């Protein structure tokens, strides 16, 4: 493991994602990735009597499924890095409460999956154990009531707004020799472009995605054409456009290899999600349900996963503060190349 420029890390000995699992709500499982999730809820409440418990249930199911696939008992998991969008990360805390696993709570808003994965990789790469899990979730209803309005309230969403995904993803990082591999990571910097509209998260985060992608490419000496896919999450329509414009100004064209988790999870026209999906669980679930399997079977070879987060609270938004963004990157490969 080697520290490169900026917040970049290179894993000389790549790590393996030995198992992964995903969960999704009914709307998410009705989208383009239908049928790819390990668990798909039939109703948003997932049989629970509060939205917070519904979100915790996503975490419990995803983690349970991932360690089952990895053939691990909870006691064999050395560390769990996990987080969600709720205050004090209660979705994760209550979801993992009964597993009795060493728990490291992570908050990176919607960038949490990449942040958790990077931390898990660093721990395993340092020789601190054999299995570290990264888990992230979000739930439309628990997020709505915390950040916006009650679910039954009849407010109209603006065209730039994004739909918080009811979804979760879990990946177990191990020092094994099986694809998909993690070969690098970049921790991003807090980037505030002065966007104040909390109904336009993509715009608030696109600047951070630009910074992290630029830093990662420069530190690792790579070019967008070296990747099959540069996957941001979740910039949506607006943020993706801004990101491409920003990179274009530097003479970098990513349009052939770029896609966004917020655009992959939903059918934008049919499912009426306006500018796309968002929420910490969106990129986590898209990664674990769609991207990691494709890396595992060799359909994708090299992927840069850049999860983006908006580091605001409902309170700072009311106080008129702008929305700082952050993005963390993880580089995946299907083969180890030396």
């Amino acid at each position, binding site marked *: 493991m080697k520290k490169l420029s900026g917040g970049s890390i290179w894993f000389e000995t790549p790590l393996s994602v030995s198992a992964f699992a995903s969960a999704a709500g*009914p*709307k998410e499982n009705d989208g383009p990735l239908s049928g790819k999730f390990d668990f798909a809820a039939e*109703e*948003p*409440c997932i049989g629970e*009597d509060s939205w917070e418990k519904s979100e915790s249930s996503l975490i419990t199911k995803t983690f349970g499924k991932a360690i089952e696939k990895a053939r691990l008992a909870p006691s064999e998991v050395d560390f769990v890095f996990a987080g969600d969008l709720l205050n004090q990360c209660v979705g994760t805390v209550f979801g993992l409460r009964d597993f009795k696993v060493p728990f490291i709570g992570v908050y990176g808003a919607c960038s949490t999956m990449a942040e958790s994965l990077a931390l898990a990789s660093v721990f395993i790469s340092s020789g601190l154990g054999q299995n570290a899990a990264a888990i992230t979730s979000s739930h*439309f*209803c628990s997020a709505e009531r915390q950040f916006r*309005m009650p*679910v*039954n*309230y009849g*407010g*109209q969403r603006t065209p730039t707004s994004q739909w918080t995904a*009811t979804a979760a993803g879990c990946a177990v990082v191990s020092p094994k020799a099986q694809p998909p591999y993690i070969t690098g990571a970049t921790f991003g910097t807090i980037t505030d472009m002065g966007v104040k*509209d909390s109904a336009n998260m993509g715009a608030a985060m696109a600047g951070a995605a630009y910074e992290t992608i630029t830093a990662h490419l420069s530190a690792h000496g790579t070019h967008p054409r070296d990747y099959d896919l540069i996957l941001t999450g979740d910039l949506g329509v607006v943020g993706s456009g801004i990101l491409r414009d920003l990179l274009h100004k530097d003479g970098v064209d990513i349009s052939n290899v770029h896609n966004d988790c917020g655009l992959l999870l939903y059918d934008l026209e049919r499912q009426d999600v306006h500018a796309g999906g968002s929420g910490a669980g969106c990129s986590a679930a898209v990664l674990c349900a769609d991207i990691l399997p494709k890396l595992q079977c060799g359909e994708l070879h090299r992927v840069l996963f850049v999860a983006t987060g908006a580091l605001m609270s409902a309170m700072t938004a009311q106080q008129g503060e702008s929305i700082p963004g952050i993005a963390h990157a993880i580089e995946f490969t299907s083969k180890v190349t030396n």
Partner: protein
Amino acid sequence: MKQIIIAFLVGGGICLLGQLLIDLTKLTPARILTAFAVCGVLLGAVGVYRPLIDFAGAGATVPLLGFGANLAFGVKRAVDENGWSGALTGPLTAASGGIAAVLLLSLLAAVIFKRGLNCKAAK
């Protein structure tokens, strides 16, 4: 029939103004509702809302402007009857029927409706 059409046109027109505020400004629904209620008080106070109600009936009373105007009418009546103290007692007296109904029915709804229904709402 003519009265119903007038109510439709005037009420629709007022809502059209609200939609322009939603689409062209970044005002939240809470701010728009508050603005409509306060504007209603002003319009009622300066005397333009009473003629509108006489003309459009429910087209003018059903939008929240009518709620505000009603407060203004209540204050005027209370001051006419009781002098200065009417400025304090008038506003909520006029609105009390509507507010009490909203609170009572919402509480009832919260008690009666199970989350199972609320659960489906998010689909």
